[in-house]
C-alpha cells in the first residue's frame, strides 16, 4: 500500500522569492499529520499547491500513488483531496443544511446533477453530519448568520460530507474560544481513521491533543519531523522560533 499523500521535492517561486523550497514528505494512509511553523513558513502555500490553487514550479504531488501535480482544483478534489480554508469559507446565502447537501452532491459535471433531491442514504448522512457538527438547531438558517465558530464547524461539516480520502485543514481552531476548540478537536477525532489528515495548527495544547507526527517548516523548508516530544526538544526548531522559550 502506497502512502496517502506524497510530496516530492515540491517548490514554488513567486518571482525571486521561494515560498516553498524543495519540500519532501509522505503521509501514511489514516495518519494525522500536523504542520507547524511560524507565519510565512510556507504552510498555507504548501496546501495551496496540494489542492491546486497555486501551481508549483517544481516537484510532484501524489495521492495514493497518483500524480495530481498542477491539476485543476476540481479534479484534485474529485481525486480525493478536501480542504478547509484558514478564513472559513462556506456558501453564505445557502442554509446550513443546503451547505452540507451541496457537499454531498457527487459528480463534477452539471449533467450528473440534473436531478431532484438526495437519495435516502445521502439525506440520512446529511442529517447525521448536521448533528455531528452540532448545528441541528440552526440547520435552516442561512450560513451568513452563523457565528465564527459555527462557520468553522460548518466548513468541517462540508468536508465530512464531501468525504475525501485526504483532508487538508488550515488552522481549524483559529479565532476559537477554549470550548469551541474542544468541540473542534472532537469533530477532527471523528474524521480520523477513515481519512488521512494534514493539519496546520498553532495552538500547542490542541496539537498535543491530536498530533501523532509533526512536521516543522521554516522559511519554506522542512526543518524537523517527529513526535510531539521530539519536536519540543529539537534545537533547530527552537532556533527557528527565535531562540525564545521554544513553542509553548
Amino acid at each position, binding site marked *: 500500500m502506497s502512502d496517502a499523500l506524497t510530496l516530492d521535492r515540491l517548490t514554488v517561486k513567486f518571482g525571486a522569492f521561494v515560498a516553498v523550497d524543495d519540500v519532501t514528505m509522505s503521509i501514511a494512509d489514516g495518519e494525522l499529520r500536523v504542520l507547524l511553523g511560524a507565519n510565512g513558513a510556507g504552510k498555507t502555500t504548501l496546501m495551496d499547491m496540494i489542492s491546486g490553487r497555486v501551481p508549483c514550479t517544481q516537484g510532484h504531488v501524489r495521492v495514493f500513488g497518483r500524480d495530481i501535480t498542477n491539476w485543476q482544483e476540481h479534479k484534485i478534489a474529485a481525486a480525493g483531496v*478536501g480542504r478547509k480554508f484558514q478564513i472559513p469559507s462556506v456558501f453564505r446565502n445557502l442554509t446550513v443544511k443546503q451547505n452540507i447537501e451541496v457537499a454531498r*452532491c457527487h459528480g463534477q459535471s452539471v449533467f450528473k446533477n440534473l436531478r431532484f*433531491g438526495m437519495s435516502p442514504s445521502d439525506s440520512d448522512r446529511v442529517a447525521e453530519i448536521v448533528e455531528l457538527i452540532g448545528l441541528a438547531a440552526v440547520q435552516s438558517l442561512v450560513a451568513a448568520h452563523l457565528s465564527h465558530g459555527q462557520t468553522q464547524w460548518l466548513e468541517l461539516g462540508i468536508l465530512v460530507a464531501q468525504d475525501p480520502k485526504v483532508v487538508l485543514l488550515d488552522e481549524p481552531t483559529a479565532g476559537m474560544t477554549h470550548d469551541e476548540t474542544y468541540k473542534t478537536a472532537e469533530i477532527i477525532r471523528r474524521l480520523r481513521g477513515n481519512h488521512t489528515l494534514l493539519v496546520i495548527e498553532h495552538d500547542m495544547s490542541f496539537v498535543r491533543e491530536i498530533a501523532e507526527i509533526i512536521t516543522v517548516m521554516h522559511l519554506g523548508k522542512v526543518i524537523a519531523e517527529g513526535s510531539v516530544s521530539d519536536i519540543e526538544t529539537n534545537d533547530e526548531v527552537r532556533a527557528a522560533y527565535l531562540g525564545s522559550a521554544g513553542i509553548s
Partner: protein
Amino acid sequence: MDLKRKLQLAAYALFILSLFAVPLFTDDFGLNRASKYLVYGMLGLSIALTWGYAGVLNLGQGLFFGLGAYMMAMSLKLMSPTSLAQGSDKPIPDFMLWNAEPDAPIELCCITPGSYLWIPFQDQWFGVAMGIVVPVVVAGLLGALVFKNRISGVFVSIITLALVLLVRLIVIDAQPVTNGFNGLTDLGFFTVFGYEFDPYSREMYYLVAVSLAFVLVAGRLLADTRASLILQAIRDDQQRARHLGFDVPLYQTFFFVVSAAIAGYAGMLFVLVSEFASPTFMDLSFSVTMVVWAAVGGRSSLLGACIGAILINVIESQVSETEALVDAWKAIIGLIFVLVVLFLPRGLGGLAHDFVDWLARRDREKAHGLAASSSSPEREVKQDV
C-alpha cells in the same frame, strides 16, 4: 410538503391558469399586445435565471433575443409575398434588389455579397432550428471563454454588454444581408402543416402562452435540481465549490446557455407576433430594460421576474394611451428603478417571500401555542426561490 412549497405551486398554477383566461377578456388586437408582454415575461425569466441563480448579470441578453429573432425573421421574410414577386421563381428579399449591383443575377446565391447565407432559410424549420442553435452556440462559446478564464461579476456584465453592441454594429453594417438599420419587415406567416399563424389571432396567443407556461415549468424544475443548488453555491463562493470537486465553468456555462436558449426562443416568438426584426433588439437600452423588469419583479425569482416584466409593460401600455404621458412614464420607470434598487433589492418576488415567511411563522406559532411564540431563537430565513 410545507406551506411555502404549497404557496409557490399555487402561485405558478394561478399564473398559468390566468394566462389561458386572457382570451376571454380581450379581442384579437388586445391578444396581440398581450402576446408581446408574455414574450417580455419570458425574457425577464431568462434574466433571473442567470442573475439570481448564477450571480451573472447579463447586460447583453438582447444579443440572444436578437439572434433568435433574426433567424426566424429570415425564414419568414422568404415566405413573404413580396419576396416571391421580385421577378425570380425563387423568393428573394426585396431589400437585396435595392442593395444589389445593377448586373447581379437575381438569385439568393449571389445577388449581394453574403446573400448565399439565406439559402437554407428557405426552409422555415431551418430558421426555427437556428433560432435556438445560434444563441446556444454563441452563449456556449462565450460562456466557455469567460467562465474558464474565471471572469466574474461586473466583468461578465461588461463583456456581454460590449458583445451585444458589437454584433449590433455588424448587423447594421451588413446592409446587403440584413437590411441594416431598417431590419427585416414585411414578413410572411409562420406556417405549420399548412396552417398559417395570424399574429392577430387566438391561435397565436395560445402558441405564446403555451410556450411561456412550458418555459416557466421547465425553469422551475431546473431551479429545483441539485445542479441549481450547486450553481447557487458557486455564486456564493466559487473557490469553495471548486475544492468540492465541481467543474465550476461547466455549471455556469450550462445555465448561461439555457438562459440564452430561452431568450432566443423569446426572440422567435416576438417576430411571429410583431412581424419584424430590427437591430434595436440589440440596443443597450433594451437589454438594460430587461434587467429592470427582472429587478422590479425579483432578481432571484423566476415567476417574479416574469410577472415584473408583464406588469411594467401592461402599465406602460395603459399610460402610453395618453400621448403626453409617454415621456413622463419613462421618467417614472427611472425613478421606480432607483427606488427598487435602494429599498426593495429583492423586488416584488422578495416581498412575496417575506409575506410567505410571515405566514409560515404565524402558522408555526399557532401550532406551537402561545408559549413557543416568544422563544423562537431562529432568525428569519431568507431563501429565494
